[in-house]
């Protein structure tokens, strides 16, 4: 299964639309697109995970390093529209308390 990532740049905001599965094989692709965005000073990065059907712990690793990078660069990271299976692993790992997640909001980010 593949992963597609596309970036939409808006005013002071970058939206990353991700779809597919995030695992050990596809995570590097996500990291390549996501990390540079968080390195832009004061950038607001939103990741739309609406079409992500599966994510394993390697995917969490990508978001953790993105989170650390936002702290170093005064940027922000928000995850949007997570499917239940994906949201579950953020909850189990406690990462939902350190990463901003807006799970239930649908539409408006397309």
């Amino acid at each position: 299964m593949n992963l597609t990532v596309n970036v939409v740049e808006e005013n002071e905001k970058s939206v990353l639309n991700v779809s597919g599965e995030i695992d050990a094989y596809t995570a590097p692709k996500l990291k390549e697109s996501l990390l540079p965005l968080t390195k832009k000073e004061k950038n607001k990065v939103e990741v739309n995970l609406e079409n992500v059907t599966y994510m394993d712990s390697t995917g969490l690793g990508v978001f953790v390093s993105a989170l650390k990078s936002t702290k170093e660069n005064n940027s922000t990271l928000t995850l949007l529209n997570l499917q239940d299976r994906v949201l579950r692993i953020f909850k189990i790992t406690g990462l939902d308390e350190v990463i901003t997640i807006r799970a239930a909001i649908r539409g408006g980010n397309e």
Partner: protein
Amino acid sequence: MCHFHRTFWTTSVNKKILPVIWLLGGIEMEELIKLHAATYKELLKNYVDTQDERALYGVEKVTKAFIKENILPEEIVNLHIDAMEEVSTKLNKDYKHSMNFLLEAMISYGLAMQEIQMLREEKHVLESEISVAASMQETLLGTTKPSIEGLDIGIVSVPAHQMNGDYHHFIKGKDGSLGIAIADVIGKGIPAALCMSMIKYAMDSYPEESMSPKSILKNLNRVVERNVDPSMFITMCYAQYLPSEQKLRYSSAGHEPGYYYNAKNDTFKEIDAKGLVLGVSPDSEYSEYELVIEKNDMIILLTDGVTECRDGERFIESQEVLSIIRKYAYLPAQEMVDNVYKHFERLQDFQLRDDFTLLILRKKV
């Protein structure tokens, strides 16, 4: 032009191939190649004369032998050119030019083949290094399943690849308590395995009885946060069984929740524990929880390799894991975990995507 090419390639090919031949077994190998070359010529002559299919079958065998001896494709074309000179006197100029053209075209294939050969050798070296590392890891991280009066323990831990990123450890306290750690490094393979050694040695350095689950996790979190790559972190559940009080005290750092089986009501309940994974935030605090354990109750701890395994495209849900545990619950704990693993291993399209660790404790009295 055409002559220049042929001489050029014959010599350069010899230079390349000779050291290989010597390495592989000296003169004998050289003789063998000559023999195969002669067979090739014979078969070719036979085929040109008769178009007998047996010659085609024969050349297939010779080619396989050439491959074994690392003969490059351009050398075979070269051999073919020489052989044709002997086989037929009717070769025209265009044919000869075309064969030199083909020779040139084969060179890249030859280079690619040599590269594959080299990669194969390198892979072999790496594989044996990894297997040394894997057995070293086993020694370093080894833990013995303790025998504790009144407690039946079963553990199975299977790596998805050579090295295991899961970790479990038993620490028997002088007061009769039992400490159990189960952990999963995020990130797979060798870096994960190396990281586990760090955890183990950090834990070994803590004075055993003075530490409660929550302070063990708090301390480990600091170690991990300072020492690992930002994209790596560890989930861990640390539990302490206190036989004198019939209690299990535990804390979790973002670890896949385990299950508590209540024998009296015959029910499974998810072991609820909140806590951030190790290595993300330097000052995480962990909560501590308690469970009262009675006769025949079970504690089931696992890693997400268990709940993340798939049968083809289908995920195995935790309810399914529990129903399998229930199925084998009449067995001693070790046989239970072995059978649960075997059950999943037998599924037709089962693929272990992550390391798999399952630990069961049952209070016998």
